[in-house]
């Protein structure tokens, strides 16, 4: 039996502007011994419980488990979420610029050095300079009431550039360069 368990959750986030964010798959890999019912191993304060109870308030969003998930009965409430991109990759960590999604920041105002060990094996091939990711801190709840605090770095599996992208870029280039040289 593998000693880890993978759970896939779909992203259903709308941001505070009502803008539908690009859908991506959140993959949670966790030690199997931590996936159990019963009393949670992470205490939850009253204010955090209050926050969890707010549901989809814009600050905390419950993520429904996806159909056919490997583990059933789990939900995830994001307390804090960032969108980021990789600036530089070091030996043990990567440096990234962050935009605060939870508080709807319009700018990448923060930087963080995250350990490479926080990148799941399945995302390693996506880790490169310029790669985009989501970083979520929140509570995972089981149907039986177990609550665990989790941090997840999820690299976005963006679509590849297509022939159409290149064709559009070529047409736009021709138009722009034409305008600039005509002046």
């Amino acid at each position, binding site marked *: 039996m593998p000693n880890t368990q993978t759970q896939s959750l779909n992203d259903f986030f709308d941001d505070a502007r009502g803008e539908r964010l*690009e859908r991506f798959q959140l993959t949670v890999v966790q030690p199997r011994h931590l996936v159990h019912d019963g009393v949670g191993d992470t205490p*939850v*304060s009253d*204010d*955090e419980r209050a*926050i969890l109870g707010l549901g989809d308030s814009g600050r905390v969003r419950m993520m429904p488990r996806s159909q056919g998930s490997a583990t059933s009965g789990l939900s995830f409430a994001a*307390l*804090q979420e960032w*969108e*980021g*991109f*990789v*600036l*530089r990759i070091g030996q043990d960590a990567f*440096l990234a*610029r*962050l*935009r605060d999604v939870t*508080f709807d920041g*319009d*700018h*990448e*105002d*923060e*930087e*963080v*050095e995250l*350990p490479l060990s*926080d990148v799941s094996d399945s995302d390693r091939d*996506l880790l*490169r*300079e*310029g*790669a*985009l990711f989501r970083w979520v*801190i929140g*509570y995972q709840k089981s149907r039986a009431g177990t609550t665990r*605090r989790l*941090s997840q770095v999820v690299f976005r*599996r*963006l*679509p*590849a*550039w*297509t*022939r159409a*992208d*290149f064709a*559009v*870029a*070529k047409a*736009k*280039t021709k138009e*722009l*360069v034409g*305008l*600039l*040289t*005509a*002046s």
Partner: protein
Amino acid sequence: MESPGPDVVEVNVFGPGFGECVLVHLGSGNWMIVDSCEGEDHEPAALKYLTSIGVDPATAVKLIVITHWHDDHVRGIGKVVRACTSSQVCFSAALGKEQFVEAMYVRDTNGPGRLSSGVREIRAVLECVAGRKGSVIYSMANTIVLQMPAAALAHGENCEVRTLTPSGKQFELAMEAIAGLMPTLGQTRSRATAQSPNHLSVVTWVCVGEVAVLLGADLEERSDPATGWSAVAALPPFPAERAQVFKIPHHGSATGHSDRIWNERVADAPIAVVTPWSRSSGLPSLDDVKRITSLTPNAFATSKGLRGQRSKRLPAVERQLREMGVKISSALPKMGHVQLRRKASAWVVSLSDGACLLQELL
């Protein structure tokens, strides 16, 4: 702050610890801007300053030089160009080539979403200029990009701005690097990131009468006589010959240093201004500070290079960050400002908002 008098040459260097912008008053209300950076309020430093002293950027700014497209030099430059409606825009000839424009469009189409990017800023600039039916001045080594006759200026001195880079070889190397910027078919979309070495950086020589200002951008020395500072040093003498003010290249790094430039193109004990870079281990290093302060006692920094404080999070988030041993820092510390005003052969230096003597970084 007050607007400089019409006969006063003023050099402003802004730097929040990540990014830089230089704003120069050439005389009689004519200004030029080199690069752009933003502070905590996300307003481009040059526009904010001009507005604060009652100057209308739309009519006052005559030239905008974009040294290269890296994030720390172009934040807000699209907004700057849109506001400065009577300004000419100048950047490296390599950025005007179809190869760059095409890579720019591919990268920015379905690229970083709401995340900013230097490429997106350049796109905003190009589309703004094209929309105005304007043109771009393409920089090459020793190219005059602005001239104003003495008769048009209150100080009665001729004014000339020339770009000193790229050299022919640097242009070729920049084109090779731009080829690497173009993604390949089937490659996962990602944000364009800075390329190294930087062969795009535009160095500017500003001359008003006998006063010369050397703006070093991010140009580095690569021990190749045909590129970098060696190629600049090999150019024929410029007007005024030696710079009294030197915006130190590449955040004071050792790779931006050139003995020949200090010995042959810069005056004795010039005013030197460093824009620190607070990422990672940061620049300038202690050795860099020692080197620069040994070359001139008149060295200043736009900031102490400290990272700003980030906002507080929910207690559970703070606990998680502590347990992970992860520290988040503000990428936009307070905007520092070094102001140099010259009148009657004397420079007056004003430091504000975290700017300091360079030796204070020791």
